[in-house]
């Protein structure tokens, strides 16, 4: 029995669900295939999503989506031992929010289904099928085939299907980072109290320094409705050489950190999770984002931005899925699903979008991430300066004296310091 769809979407994450929703809304016959049980069960992220692209894709997004807290406070900390220097920005705009990706994705899949897409779970796609001419004609799972005019590959960061197809090379440690996360139950009122936020408002917090065992990367803390998501992200390339203890211990040290643990004191760990993320998004992008009958979206397309102080993956994924969905509609209207046409309809606008422009502009982070020294020396320097300025027991040093003496502790000359700072500001 041959089953044929207009579009088969592989992977019901934010990219796949948004592609399915968009194509189905325009009346296409869409099949959304997911390897997990139910929607969302294989989804992991840090904790925060930017809303603007989702508002563009989903009407009534603000009213319906499972939003835990709107981020009101942005914090960035340099941590050394039990000391930290923190920068905080406060705003009451509704720009980004915290949630569980498991919930947000389930909601997106519900939207896709209500728009008419067929959702099939517990099906692991084994390969994308091509005909003799190289045109993608469907997908295969457990020996069964489903045919489609267009396949959207939204398989995620582990690109088993694209590798098999020869469209992506095997992932290298230099292209990805490992994120390990715990969700800790705290209670809604306690979060409001301890983080100093009103109901429905939250904190997004990025930390770097010895919280990653001085490995390039960072740690994060996000407040959800009644839990906090805490975790550590390390670049695999340097982690392979620098890691000194099992990685879960880093997250456990963050949870029990003397300056932080009171924020979630007595909180039970409700879930432990991990995922890879494309860390140098632009470098992880496949050579082409579309071939005859196929488009690639989300993490599989390398669409994740790390600026060092914020991370964007979910909204980029959703937006790329949306663009793939729209491109599918147009291509089928035009009756041309060839490589050239799909690249014109999908890849070109994507490459010209703010997403890819952002990825290109922020490539300086790659340079920073390949300098492990920064992650060790500068948090120590900053906390050293703050300690000299604020922990006064005798003579009060001037800012210059504090800086000079803290820099000398880290073996940094003032000239080197100024040059490094200049480079960091230029690069980020």
């Amino acid at each position, binding site marked *: 029995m041959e089953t044929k769809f207009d579009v088969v979407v592989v992977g019901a994450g934010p990219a796949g669900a948004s592609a399915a929703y968009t194509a189905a809304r325009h009346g296409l016959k869409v099949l959304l295939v997911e390897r997990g049980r139910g929607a969302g069960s294989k989804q992991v992220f840090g904790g925060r999503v930017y809303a603007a692209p989702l508002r563009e894709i989903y009407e009534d997004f603000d009213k319906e989506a499972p939003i835990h807290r709107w981020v009101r406070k942005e914090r960035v900390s340099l941590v050394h031992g039990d000391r930290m220097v923190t920068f905080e920005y406060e705003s009451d705009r509704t720009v980004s929010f915290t949630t569980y990706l498991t919930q947000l994705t389930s909601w997106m899949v519900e939207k896709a289904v209500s728009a008419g897409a067929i959702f099939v779970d517990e099906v692991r796609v084994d390969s994308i099928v091509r005909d003799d001419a190289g045109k993608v004609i469907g997908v295969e799972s457990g020996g069964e085939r489903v045919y489609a005019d267009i396949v959207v590959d939204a398989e995620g960061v582990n690109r088993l299907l694209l590798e098999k197809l020869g469209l992506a090379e095997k992932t290298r440690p230099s292209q990805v980072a490992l994120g390990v996360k715990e969700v800790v139950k705290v209670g809604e009122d306690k979060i409001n109290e301890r983080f100093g936020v009103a109901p429905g408002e939250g904190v997004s917090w990025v930390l770097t320094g010895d919280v990653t065992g001085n490995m390039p990367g960072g740690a994060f803390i996000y407040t959800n409705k009644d839990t906090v998501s805490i975790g550590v992200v390390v670049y695999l390339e340097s982690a392979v050489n620098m890691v000194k203890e099992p990685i879960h211990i880093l997250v456990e040290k963050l949870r029990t950190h*003397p300056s932080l643990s009171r924020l979630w004191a007595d909180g039970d760990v409700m879930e432990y999770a991990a995922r890879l993320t494309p860390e140098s998004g632009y470098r992880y992008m496949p050579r082409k984002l579309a071939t005859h009958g196929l488009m690639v979206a989300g993490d599989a397309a390398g669409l994740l931005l790390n600026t060092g102080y914020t991370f964007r993956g979910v909204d980029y994924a959703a937006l790329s899925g949306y663009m793939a969905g729209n491109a599918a509609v147009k291509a089928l209207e035009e009756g041309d699903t060839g490589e050239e046409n799909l690249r014109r309809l999908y890849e070109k606008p994507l490459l010209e979008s703010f997403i890819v422009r952002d990825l290109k502009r922020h490539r300086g982070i790659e340079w920073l991430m390949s300098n492990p020294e920064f992650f060790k020396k500068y948090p120590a320097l900053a906390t050293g300066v703050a300690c000299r300025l604020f922990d006064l027991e005798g003579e009060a040093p001037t800012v210059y004296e504090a800086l000079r003496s803290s820099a000398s502790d880290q073996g940094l000359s003032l000239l080197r310091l100024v040059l490094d700072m200049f480079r960091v500001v230029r690069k980020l």
Partner: protein
Amino acid sequence: MSTGEAKPKLIRVEDLLQRTVYDVDHRAHIIVDPEKCARCPKKPCTYLCPASCYVLVDDRVVFSYEGCLECGTCRVICPMEAITWNFPVSGKGVQYRFA
């Protein structure tokens, strides 16, 4: 800051994994080639697998797939390419709820 609170203790990885829900398949979704693995000088998987699926016992890596969080790290870092990696079938494996 309060000083009376007991210092929180680190949770062992086997207890952390208890906080996460699994439907373990009886078929392993990851296969390790023991010969290639034995020749590996660094064995980074024993540190970087967040679920400690790879444990060093008498200089040999002992592998179990049951606690796998399906992140894919081992596949990327294995210097010997000793790992045949795929996702579990039939919706088995890790079942995230709050991630």
